[in-house]
């Protein structure tokens, strides 16, 4: 076993991993004997204590258990919302790349190349972020040993692999004068298809949880993530400072994304708030603030980008605002989910209002 515990004698404890098992007297062979435990405090539990400190006390209002969270909150840290952003950017860029390949693509050569490169680099960074966030990073490939349609995360791992692989082929092969060139062309289109999946599946991943606010927003989250991915592509190209056709094209794509992203945010607030308690993290506290900030930045990016006769400086400002808005939006979704998971009453009220399993019974075609 991975841990050795020794006692000088039965009273004085020299070192313990929180099991208090004298390995000279007994074997560590239990089901959880190799569960690593360095100290005796669980960081996660400590975080939850903060919540309890606010108001442990007698029952008031709706029934609940000492205001203790009912769910365990997401363990995902900064890497996952960052992945949502990078993956979205990657995916939407690949979609734009594929669309640009259509028809007489001569004048869009540079744009297509850029899109495929963004796809390749983005997929690489995405993979890195995903691996980093795992509890056991060395076991990342366990996700690719199986194909499990019931697991959105498993599907996502395959979509990311597909997007990265096809983007690589497109970068390497496209534009060659031989047969390989044609294969590269096809890879580019395939990358576009994987890209569309990559930019939107993360919304499904988030929605497919017991976290009340995410579950309530499930019809909007994928759209919010997809449109935000589009606007992040537009913002990135503002920063890169493209010209002519590339510029017009990315501008249209990005602006459409920003408008749609803003609309999706408004729709999400509505959907999430059907049961008011569920929508609360969107309006109150730190999560509500980040959410508002993201919306404001997106709107600012949109307006800055629409003022006629753009200057270099204004384009930069629009690009920065758009990028920040889009990235912050993913961060806020994460914050909102954590706040929601900590609020047992959000789950209780949602389910009492008929939005638990009862909701499915009302839609017989599910």
């Amino acid at each position, binding site marked *: 076993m991975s841990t050795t515990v020794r006692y000088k004698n039965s009273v004085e404890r020299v070192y313990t991993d929180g*099991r*208090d098992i004298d390995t000279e007297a007994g074997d560590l062979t*239990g*089901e*959880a*004997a190799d*569960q690593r*435990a360095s100290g*005796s405090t*669980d960081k*996660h539990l*400590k975080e939850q204590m903060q919540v*309890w400190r606010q108001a*442990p006390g*007698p*029952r008031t209002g709706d*029934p*609940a258990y*000492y205001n203790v*969270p*009912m*769910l*365990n*909150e*997401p363990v995902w840290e900064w890497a996952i919302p960052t992945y949502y952003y990078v993956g979205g950017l990657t995916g939407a860029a690949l979609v734009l790349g594929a*669309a640009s390949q259509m028809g007489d693509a001569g*004048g*869009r050569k540079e744009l297509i190349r850029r899109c495929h490169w963004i796809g390749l680099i983005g997929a690489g960074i995405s993979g890195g972020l995903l691996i980093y966030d*795992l*509890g056991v990073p060395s076991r990342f490939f*366990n996700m690719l*040993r*199986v194909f499990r349609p019931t697991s*959105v*995360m498993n599907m996502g*791992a395959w979509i990311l692999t597909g997007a990265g692989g096809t983007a690589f082929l497109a970068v390497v092969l496209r534009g060659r004068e031989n047969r390989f060139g044609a294969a590269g062309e096809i890879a580019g289109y395939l990358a*576009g298809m994987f890209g569309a999946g990559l*930019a939107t599946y993360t*919304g*499904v991943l988030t929605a*497919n949880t*017991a976290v009340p606010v*995410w579950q309530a927003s*499930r019809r909007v989250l*994928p*759209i919010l993530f*997809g*449109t935000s*991915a589009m606007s992040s592509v537009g913002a990135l190209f503002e920063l890169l400072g493209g010209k*002519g*056709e590339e510029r017009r*094209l990315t*501008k*249209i794509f990005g602006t459409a*994304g920003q408008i749609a992203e803003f609309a999706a945010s408004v729709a999400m607030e509505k959907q999430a708030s059907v049961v008011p308690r569920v929508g609360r993290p969107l309006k109150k506290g730190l999560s509500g603030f980040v959410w508002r900030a993201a919306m404001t930045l997106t709107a600012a990016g949109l307006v800055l980008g629409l003022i006629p006769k753009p200057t270099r400086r204004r384009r930069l400002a629009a690009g920065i605002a758009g990028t920040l808005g889009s990235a912050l939006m993913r961060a806020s979704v994460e914050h909102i989910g954590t706040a929601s998971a900590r609020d047992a009453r959000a*789950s209780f009220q949602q*389910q009492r209002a008929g939005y*638990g399993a009862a*909701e499915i*019974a009302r839609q017989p075609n599910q």
Partner: protein
Amino acid sequence: MAASKGFFTDTTLCIGCKACEVACKQWNQLPDDGFLFSGMSYDNTVHLGGSTWRHVAFVERPVPLNTQTDGAFSWLFSSDVCKHCARAGCLESCPTGAIIRTEFGSVYVQPDVCNGCGYCIVSCPFGVINRREEDGRAWKCTLCYDRLRDDLVPACAKACPTESIQFGDLDELRAHAKERVEQLHERGMPEAYLYGASADDQPGTEGLNAFFLLVDKPEVYNLPPDPVAPAKKVKDAWLAAGAAAAGMALAAVGAVFFGGHRA
């Protein structure tokens, strides 16, 4: 395949001794997860988690029980555990296939496969499974898989001095639980009911292999009133993703069409 096994936790018999918690920790050789003083009745365990697979809830109520002859206060105890849902959110979500359904009908996490992605944690509608920071993998009650394979009763059920935790074949447990509810009704506790005993009781999980007899609203014990395995609703989200992907493709083609060529 052996008959499905499970727990019937009759909370009216629980005396809050926490023998189950201790037995579980001991048998499975689980590390402690901090000695916290919660200030919440006698409950310093507070929640199920990566290293806590049984948790006794202490509910203090400012109202008497129906059969109570004295005083205006009542105490409810309930030993909570992984429900081994017939339709388990954690199992469906796991991207590695680490979580499996065993020959006993229980839900088991294989510690040598789990990569600690954390998706099961947000997919459990009961807040059961969790990751331990230093370990990185997801852990929860195994229904004493090792003991079952040796024909032993799970450690918690074995240790429970009042038979509040009963272990056995699910069919028998269900029949017995029904009788118990009727008995309690006759004795003047009409509020007694079964939580999650069958798919009819709890369509969202299609029934729990570890179900409960409760005498107050589920919320009081920190249990959800109408839980649902998230995947039951995922179709809505996939449809939205399809729409979003189509919209994105359309926008891209439109951008090429309208933004292209003009010098």
